[in-house]
């Protein structure tokens, strides 16, 4: 039952030493305001890396550069050894292919409301990856069962709880066989129970060897799920390390202030 999701991911987990995503000297400005001021980050394959930090600190922008939803102004990004952008120019020849390898899950799920859950998972398989209809539907049904939503396959998003919608969104991203998954505050629109559901799915993915980059404000969630935590402030990496180190014993003053603030509220 669990074998099909991680097929591609498990192949990459054999080469754990090699980073799935390498970011070097990444810079990005919006209207003259610098959001990322030179980021260097390696994300090893089959790891979960959480990026934490204040709103507007550049963490979402950093993640959106990895699938080129944002085009960096400077710096180099490699995904599975392929340079996708360098010094402000996109070097990735096939954006659609890149986005099949790097899936993304959004804060507000962004499911297609005019389609049922299963059709949400089928759409990009047929129209971006060119998979045949029968295979696409079969895979969609398997993935929905995998995230515990087989019984909701023909329901529309508006009839689903937030946790169910987010799990459909994860299935939709998985359908293209990515090796890296990006999560943009995946639980901040969810109640604690739904957060638990999403957490369970992410843990299973981690076990299957999926590389995941996660932007979050919820420190308990980050501690639960991630191997590595990166604290970003003012467009720079202030501190990074094992989740327990950064969240429980932060070295930098700014990290301490942030952790104290969000540990109290979250």
């Amino acid at each position, binding site marked *: 039952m669990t074998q099909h999701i991680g097929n591609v991911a498990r192949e990459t987990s054999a080469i754990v030493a090699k980073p799935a995503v390498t970011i070097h000297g990444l810079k990005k400005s919006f209207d003259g305001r610098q959001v990322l001021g030179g980021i260097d980050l390696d994300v090893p394959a089959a790891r979960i890396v959480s990026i934490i930090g204040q709103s507007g600190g550049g963490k979402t922008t950093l993640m959106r550069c990895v699938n080129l939803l944002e085009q960096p102004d400077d710096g180099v990004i490699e995904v599975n050894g392929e340079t996708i952008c360098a010094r402000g120019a996109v070097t990735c020849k096939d954006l659609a292919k890149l986005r099949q390898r790097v899936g*993304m899950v959004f804060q507000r799920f962004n499911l297609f409301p005019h389609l049922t859950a299963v059709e949400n998972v089928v759409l990009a398989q047929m129209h971006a990856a060119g998979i045949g209809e*029968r295979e696409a539907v079969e895979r969609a049904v398997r993935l929905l069962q995998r995230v515990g939503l087989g019984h909701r396959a023909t329901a529309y998003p508006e009839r689903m709880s937030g946790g169910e919608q987010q799990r459909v969104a994860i299935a939709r991203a998985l359908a293209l066989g990515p090796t890296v998954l990006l999560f943009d505050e995946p639980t901040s629109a969810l109640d604690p129970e739904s957060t638990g559901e999403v957490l369970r799915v992410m843990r299973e993915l981690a076990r299957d060897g999926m590389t995941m980059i996660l932007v979050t404000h919820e420190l308990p969630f980050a501690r639960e799920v991630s191997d590595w935590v990166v604290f970003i402030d003012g467009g720079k990496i202030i501190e990074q390390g094992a989740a327990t180190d950064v969240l429980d014993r932060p070295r930098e003053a700014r990290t301490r202030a942030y952790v104290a603030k969000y540990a109290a509220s979250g």
Partner: protein
Amino acid sequence: MSLLHTFTGFLQVPWSDYASNIGWGLLRTLAYTIASFVGAAALGLVLALMRLNRLRLVRLPAALYTEIFKNVPLLAIIFVTYFGLPSVGVKLSVFVAGVLSLIFFYAAYLSEIFRAAIGGIHSGQNEAAQALGLGRGTTFGHVVLPQALRLALPGTNTMFVDLLKSTSLLVTISAAELMTQAQLIASETFRALEVYLVIAAIYFAVCYPVSQCLLWLERTIHAGVPLSIGRRRRLKLAKTLLAGGA
């Protein structure tokens, strides 16, 4: 007394002699309606997309067009097209002139409805499609347009019925549609009240069921019933797989 007078008046119009006039008139009314609506919807969509374009140079002509044709009476457009254009060498048949006038006028209104509908789609939809590797065309066709059509349906339906009624203005260029036939019959029988009441009833008898059907369509789509064959097939397949595999 006068009511009785009206009733006996109905009987004095030899309706059976005019049945074929009314029938052909009705057919022509429907032909004008359908041809104009298809044209106006197509032009309206193009105008809406132009107005949503990033480039001012593309937006401006579409905005100009919409403002002009929304603020000029339909009758003036019909007269300019049919009576005016021949003086600059453009001689159009009654049918073409009539259909073009209706297209010019209704495209302006439909473009406003379409623009609001397309603009009303949350930007997260585009982003999700992009993140899934869908191209611009596919995203528009499979993500934006189906949602926009749902949003545009109520306004578009109102416009369709409005257009059907507006074909009666083509009586001014003797378009041989329903109202022109009515005028003909009235002038032959001198029974204006009876004839125009009957013709009005015929317009009602067509428009009312049409608008009810369109309302039903709105409700059906809103309830999530898949209309396309492809969607039905995929959902059926999914259900079969779930019944067998789970």
